[in-house]
Every structure is written in structure tokens, then in C-alpha cells.
């Protein structure tokens, strides 16, 4: 994985000291809260209901064991012993104290981590496919480009006070695991008919109050030109994005007000100028230099059918269930990608304890794993496991309480922190996720249902991606009482779509039942191995709506 050189390290250290100075000025009263806010936000520090929340950047969701250990240490020392992984592949601590934050940042810098731009109206942490470098359908590992974009976007002098936040994702596969089309901007690595690799750039996607699926603003950008192109999109947005209304300030509003043709024309004009100046050219040597950091591990030549793995599948039904749902085919024979679910029954989606963080670091060392990934679905991923090690890995995960066999199933729910933590929320989301998970607790039933993406947000900001859920749940507040809207038919994958709102919202104790009835319609009406999403798209809303409101 990427390692800081002296220049990266210096920048992060400087940033820590800069922030320490900002905090001191705030504590001395030289900065008003209004003036301090954008500064602390630029460093991932939010004032929430109970305390400050510190959001730590995990670029493209990749972590080393020593970084996990540092996060465990921070959780123990400065927080209540746990952290929370977000849909942007970051980690949040919800109980930080302002005076201690500079020290937390200094500790993070020791392991090449930071909180730069995890909030604020700037270019946020760059996310990428959690199966990078391992996926069988991958054209190219997206992380070298993501790292190049990270550096380009770090403390960008022109784009640190944008109309609104700006999120970028990168994927190198056909199959989209990053929700590309729901990002402000996204890069998909593609191959043209001549077999050359280039970049397709999307812009204008987003969720929140006004969800939009992004569209391509560049179909095949040459590798050398990618930073010039991204800079062009950002410049158009910074100059012309709306600043009069917070709710209309994201690039999605500009992109869809202009329409693809005009948006492309404006981007093209800036792009031509930046490209001609040559200042942002990305020479092949630079890309190659960064790529070296992401070189794959030395894979062994192994049979794809490992006898120990097969034996464990036969003798241990728990292992068999886990293997069925949580393993993904690796591009190398004899290896597998394992998803570690952070959605145990009764748990809080995305939460992890300091013991689990340390335990995973030890596990990584035992099995020669140099990196672990965070997925936007709030799970962790070990990307390069030998199949023959999997029974032992599973036993270790089980001991850590991390062996839940539900990846991609009904109880693998994306959920924002909601009103339990978040200042912006209208309703609680965690208890609703738990109620719904209880309905589908039976693993047999979950397997029978198959792939089902349930996503829950506690407010219209849609941090829980409810618009992109096969089943989406949105918490709303009606005169002080929490209600939950149901949306069906969304997708965050390559077939991106925005879910349809079914009808009036359900009460806190009704929503889980409504979800279950909707799923029952699917089970009764599906044909030919359809997923829930396929059946919904084929049948339309009517039968689902009828069932959802039947008990009303």
C-alpha cells in the first residue's frame, strides 16, 4: 500500500500543528464558533449532540495492521472504546474532546493517517472499490489513481471553499461496488476497443434531498490528462455552482440544470486550457511510481479447490454459511476475498470495538495480510486470503465476534448513526436497522431471499444511502414523532437507480413489518432466480404497495 515519503509526512505534520494553532485560537476566543466551524470541519471535526465527532480519513478504504492498532489505541484512550465505519470508508469517533483532538491527530500522523478534508465544503476523502487488486472482474487497481487524486486534492488552493462538499470515487471494474453514479464526481477505469486504458468521468450524482444519478462528462479521458480534466470539472463547479441555497449547492444541481451538453461544453473549455498549459499532466512515470506501492502480494500457485477448505465446508455448517455469503471469487486461483460483516444481530451497523480492531491486526499478521479494506457498505474486507487458511481465519473471526454470515443479505444493512448521535438527524436509524434485522434473523430465510440491499437514513441528507437501497428507509419527523418512509427499487451499482417512495410513512413499530411484507411479495412472485430488485423492476410498485399497507 501507499507509504508516505518525507514530503507527505511533512505536510500532515504541518497540518496537525496548523490545527493545534486553530484550536488554541478558538479556546482563547480569538475565533468565533462561526469562524472556527469551517476550519474544524476541514479537519473532520463536527460538534454533535453529545460531544465532538472526529472523522478520520481512510483513503480508498485501505488500512495496514499498524493503523488498525493505532485506531484501537485511540478508541481506548480518547473515546469510549469503539469507532464507527462510514459509507465513505472513513472511521468516526463520536466522543472526542476538543482539547485532545490535536493530540489524536498527532498520533494518527505517526501511522500516516489524518483527518484532512473529511468534512467541509472541499474535496473529501477519495473512495474506491474495496475489492481493488483482488476482484476477478477488474481492469486495473483503482487505488494508484485514487492516491494521485488524493494528493492533487489535498489542500487544493482553488477548491477548498466550494459551494458544498465534493465526493469522488474511483472504480476499476465493470461491476460497480462504489456507487460511482451517486458521487459528485467519479472515475471509472475503462478499456476502449483498441484495448487502451482510459478514464470515464461521471459528474452530478448525489443523494440527499434531491437525488440524481450522475452522467458521463468525459467518455474516455487519456491517462495523462485525468488531473487536468478533474480540475476542469471542479473549476466549472466552483465558478457556477449555486451558493444562494444550501440545498441546491451540490454539483448535481448545477449539472442537471445545465444538462449534459452544456456541462460538457463548459468543462471542455476549461479542460483544453489546463491541458494546453501542461501543468497538470500526469506522466506515465509518475503513475508507474505510485503503482509500485500497490503492487500485489507475491501470490503462490495453488489449486483452486483446496481440500482443507472443502472439508471444513462439509463438517462445519457455520463455516459453510459464511463461505457462501462472505467470500468473493479472487482473480488468482486458490485465493478468496473475505468480507467481514460489521452487522451482527443486535449490533450497530459499522461499529467496531478496540478489541476487534486489535484482534484483526493480529489476524492480519498471522495470515500474512498486509492490508484490510473498508467497504462503503460499512464492512471490512481481507482481500487476499489463501483458501486453505480460511477455516482458521473463520475460527479467529468467530472468536472476535466478527463471523456474521450475512454479506449482501437482508441484515447487511447500511445505516447512518441517526438521532442517537447526529445533530442533523430527524429520527433514529439504528433501532430501526435492529428491528428489521430481527425480522430476518433466520439465516436460512436470508439465504432464501438472496441479495437484498436495505439502506437506512435518519434524515434527508441520506448518509445511509436510502435512495440507492433495493429497500430504502428514511426517518422523518412529524410533530416530534419519528416516522419512516419506505422506498423501493434503488440501486447503487452499475444499474444505478433512485428508489420510488411507496406512500405515507410508517410508525416506528410498523416499518419492520412493512419491510417484511414487501419481501414476502418478492418471495411469492420471483421467477428464474431474480433478485428482489429485478422482481420489483419487472412488477412495478403496485403489488408491493398493496402488501406494505395491507395491515394498516
Amino acid at each position, binding site marked *: 500500500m501507499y507509504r508516505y515519503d518525507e514530503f507527505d509526512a511533512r505536510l500532515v505534520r504541518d497540518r496537525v500543528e496548523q490545527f493545534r494553532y486553530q484550536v488554541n485560537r478558538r479556546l482563547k476566543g480569538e475565533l468565533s464558533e462561526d469562524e472556527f466551524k469551517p476550519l474544524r470541519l476541514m479537519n473532520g471535526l463536527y460538534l454533535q449532540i453529545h460531544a465532538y465527532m472526529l472523522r478520520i480519513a481512510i483513503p480508498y478504504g485501505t488500512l495496514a495492521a499498524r493503523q488498525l492498532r493505532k485506531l484501537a489505541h485511540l478508541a481506548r484512550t480518547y473515546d469510549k472504546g469503539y469507532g464507527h465505519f462510514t459509507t465513505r470508508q472513513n472511521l468516526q469517533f463520536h466522543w472526542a474532546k476538543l482539547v485532545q483532538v490535536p493530540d489524536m491527530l498527532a498520533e494518527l500522523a505517526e501511522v500516516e493517517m489524518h483527518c484532512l478534508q473529511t468534512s467541509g465544503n472541499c474535496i473529501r476523502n477519495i473512495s474506491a472499490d474495496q475489492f481493488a487488486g483482488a476482484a476477478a472482474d477488474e481492469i486495473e487497481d483503482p487505488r494508484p489513481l485514487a492516491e494521485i487524486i488524493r494528493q492533487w486534492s489535498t489542500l487544493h488552493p482553488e477548491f477548498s471553499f466550494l459551494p458544498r462538499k465534493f465526493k469522488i470515487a474511483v472504480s476499476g471494474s465493470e461491476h460497480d461496488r462504489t456507487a460511482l453514479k451517486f458521487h459528485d464526481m467519479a472515475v471509472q477505469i475503462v478499456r476502449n476497443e483498441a484495448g487502451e486504458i482510459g478514464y470515464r468521468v461521471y459528474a452530478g450524482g448525489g443523494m440527499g434531498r434531491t437525488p440524481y444519478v450522475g452522467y458521463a462528462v468525459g467518455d474516455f479521458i487519456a491517462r495523462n490528462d485525468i488531473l487536468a480534466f478533474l480540475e476542469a470539472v471542479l473549476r466549472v463547479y*466552483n465558478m457556477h455552482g449555486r451558493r444562494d441555497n444550501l440545498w441546491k449547492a451540490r454539483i448535481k444541481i448545477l449539472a442537471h440544470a445545465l444538462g449534459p451538453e452544456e456541462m460538457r461544453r463548459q468543462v471542455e473549455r476549461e479542460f483544453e486550457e489546463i491541458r494546453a*498549459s501542461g501543468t497538470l499532466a500526469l506522466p506515465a512515470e509518475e503513475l508507474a511510481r505510485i503503482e509500485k506501492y500497490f503492487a500485489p502480494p507475491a501470490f503462490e500457485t495453488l489449486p483452486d479447490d483446496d481440500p482443507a477448505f472443502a472439508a471444513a465446508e462439509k463438517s462445519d455448517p457455520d463455516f459453510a454459511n459464511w463461505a457462501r455469503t462472505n467470500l468473493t471469487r479472487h482473480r488468482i486461483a486458490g485465493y478468496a476475498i473475505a468480507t467481514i460483516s460489521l452487522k451482527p444481530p443486535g449490533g450497530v451497523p459499522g461499529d467496531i470495538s478496540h478489541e476487534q480492531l486489535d484482534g484483526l491486526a493480529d489476524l492480519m499478521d498471522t495470515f500474512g495480510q498486509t492490508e484490510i479494506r473498508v467497504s462503503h457498505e460499512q464492512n471490512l474486507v481481507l482481500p487476499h486470503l489463501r483458501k486453505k487458511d480460511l477455516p482458521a481465519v473463520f475460527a479467529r473471526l468467530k472468536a472476535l465476534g466478527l463471523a456474521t454470515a450475512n454479506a449482501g443479505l437482508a441484515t447487511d444493512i447500511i445505516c447512518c448513526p441517526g438521532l442517537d448521535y447526529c445533530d442533523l438527524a430527524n429520527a433514529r436509524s439504528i433501532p430501526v436497522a435492529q428491528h428489521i434485522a430481527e425480522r430476518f434473523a433466520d439465516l436460512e430465510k436470508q439465504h432464501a431471499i438472496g441479495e437484498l440491499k436495505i439502506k437506512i437514513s435518519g434524515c434527508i441528507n441520506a448518509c445511509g444511502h436510502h435512495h440507492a437501497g433495493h429497500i430504502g428507509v428514511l426517518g422523518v419527523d412529524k410533530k416530534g414523532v419519528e416516522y419512516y418512509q419506505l422506498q423501493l427499487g434503488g440501486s447503487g451499482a452499475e444499474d444505478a437507480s433512485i428508489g420510488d417512495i411507496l406512500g405515507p410513512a410508517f410508525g416506528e413499530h410498523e416499518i419492520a413489518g412493512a419491510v417484511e411484507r414487501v419481501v414476502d411479495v418478492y418471495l411469492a412472485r420471483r421467477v428464474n432466480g431474480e433478485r428482489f430488485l429485478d422482481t420489483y423492476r419487472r412488477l412495478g410498485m403496485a403489488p408491493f404497495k398493496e402488501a406494505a399497507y395491507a395491515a394498516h
Partner: protein
Amino acid sequence: MPLIKNGVFVDDPYAKLGDADPLPTDRPFVLSLARFRKERDQVLAGNSARGIQLKSDESPEALGHDLPRLSVVALEFPKFRDGRAFSWARMLRTRLGFAGEIRATGHFLYDQINFMHRTGFDAFEVPDGFRLEEFARALGEITNVYQPSVDGRTTVRALRSALPRS
């Protein structure tokens, strides 16, 4: 307001004209784009140095061919969150090739000065009591930069390629 130009406090030679003030004949002045459009010929007729104050939603491209006849373009921050002027400054220095003074006016923060300097601002109207040490500190807080910009600072990439090859 105190003015920092090229890193030092200077007396501001420019009179800021309201829309009703007479055009001075004997000293430099700055006026709004709206007034400039109305009185363009008179403004350009005089020998005094002149500048235009742009609002944050006014692109410097609006100045068209008159830009070379201006010595100051002042860019307004109506509130510090409005970051359009970063792009306007950069456009002035690159696309439009403006070599005169780019002045920051309005409400901006100490913490934005480095970004302003990087995008082409060379003059800053700062609040009373602002100390020059703070200005120097703001520019020096972050040693390394990743982006090439109009301030010509050596980027991290250039520093890396200057290292002896291992």
C-alpha cells in the same frame, strides 16, 4: 483598511469610489463594474491608474479587452465561505494573463490567506490590528504543496524528481 501588498504593509494609493463620487483626476481609484460599464469612456480617458472591484458573482472575463488598461482587480469575499474568487484570481493570472494587482477585499479568514496567495492574490485588505507576523505565518504553515499554481511554488512531485535516484 490596512493593506498588505507583496508581504508588507503599504499605504493604499487607491481611492474607493462610491457610485456618486466624482472621478478623481489626480489619484488612482477603484470603482464597481456596474459604474465602469456606465462611464467606461470617461474612466479610461484619464491618466490615473484605475481598478475595478468585482463582486463574487462577476467573472473577470466581463472586463474583456479593457483588462490591460486596469492596474488593480479587487475580488470580493462577501463572506469567507464564498470561494469563487479563488477561481477568478487564477483565471486572471492564467487565461487572461493579468499582471497587475489582485486584491482581496471583504470577509476572509487568516486561514485562507495561503490559498489566496497561491491562486494569484498579491494584495490583501486586512482588519485593523492584523499583524504582519500572522501574514508570514499563514504563508508558511504548510511547507509542501501538491498542486502547481500561479505562485510558482515547487510542488511535491518536482521535489521528488529532484531527489537522487536510489
